[in-house]
């Protein structure tokens, strides 16, 4: 069905007064059991940092996080690793976060997923990763850098992150 949906518009550059909130990036407190830190950078088609982006992570059962990028395009979240969730057809999906990206210059938000680097077998069987051309799958898998998970979002160009239709 297609009712008259309200169209999207960009979040613009000045959402800082309205959307970020204190500890929005902390789904769990630092130091709590199972806490993991995710760090990344949002980059444009020239590889330049995007200092006016807002990211949200959504995971049923885990929680909701919201973080904006700083002047270097950098963001971070503190959360716990989600468990496997079933796909609509009942098959298991590898642990992942749903990530939404808003920014000046994005007339609609973008959707992507962050998977975990220590889930090689589950990732290989994941029904969504298997829909992505093999050469681009690694854009969706975080990298373990000394216990911190690193996940960059490249909006455009070489090694562009895979985004999903809404």
């Amino acid at each position, binding site marked *: 069905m297609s009712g008259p949906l309200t169209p999207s*518009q960009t979040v613009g550059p000045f959402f800082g007064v309205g959307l970020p909130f204190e500890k929005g990036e902390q789904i769990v407190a630092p130091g709590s059991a199972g806490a993991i830190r995710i760090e990344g950078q949002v980059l444009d088609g020239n590889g330049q940092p995007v200092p*006016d982006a807002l990211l949200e992570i959504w995971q049923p059962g885990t929680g909701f996080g919201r973080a904006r990028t700083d002047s270097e395009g950098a963001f971070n979240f503190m959360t716990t690793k989600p468990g496997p969730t079933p796909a609509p057809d009942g098959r298991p999906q590898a642990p992942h976060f749903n990530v939404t990206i808003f920014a*000046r210059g994005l*007339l609609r938000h973008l959707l992507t997923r962050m998977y975990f680097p220590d889930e090689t077998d589950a990732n290989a069987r994941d029904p969504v990763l298997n829909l992505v051309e093999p050469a681009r799958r690694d854009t969706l898998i975080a990298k373990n850098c000394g216990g911190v998970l690193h996940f960059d979002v490249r*909006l455009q160009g070489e090694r562009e992150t895979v*985004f999903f239709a809404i």
Partner: protein
Amino acid sequence: MSEDEREPPYLYPDYVGTRLRAPAKPLVNLPEGFHDFPAPLFPRTIAELDHDLTRRHAGEPIGERIIVTGRVLDSDGRPLRKTIVEVWQANAAGRYLDQDDQHPAPLDPNFTGAGRCLTDDDGEYRFITIKPGAYPWKNHRNAWRPAHIHFSLLGGEFRSRLVTQMYFPGDPLMPRDPIMQSIPDQAGRERLVSRFDPQTTVPEWALAYRWDIVLRGRAATPFEHEP
């Protein structure tokens, strides 16, 4: 037109900011249902007076006090209760409380420009604020944004997430604004324009504008549960 064809494209070159930020590769379509899941608990507190942007400081902000209200609905016209509505806007002079806003217009010590509320049992939200001013931006020579209020909506579903902007009726800047004109059809653009609401206008106090918002629902038809 499909739902997607009614939305602005990611790349809209007249809006210069899209040129290096729009994905160049096609988005990957997932089979129906992968984005059908409920929103997790929203951790931000929403207090009683958060809907009133005119009462956040010692004094009242300068500008034209207005009421902005409307209903949040699904595409079948059903009210979406307890939807989180967050708004932010420029002050009456067209200036945001943001260190990156360089427009040489005054800040207002009595106006922050942010509010939030939950929709009620009829899906209705209500804000009290001041009418935001138009302001210049550097997209092209002599570029001005029409007066607008930014809205962020978190419904019960992942797919219903929406960030958009509400405009005011009769604003002559709308036809010249590439952000608004990025919406492909006139009917879609008109869905972002509030209407003056004389019934809700409070005599001797504030004009009212009404704007309804329709959010996406689940892609898949929900199963009817067995009794």
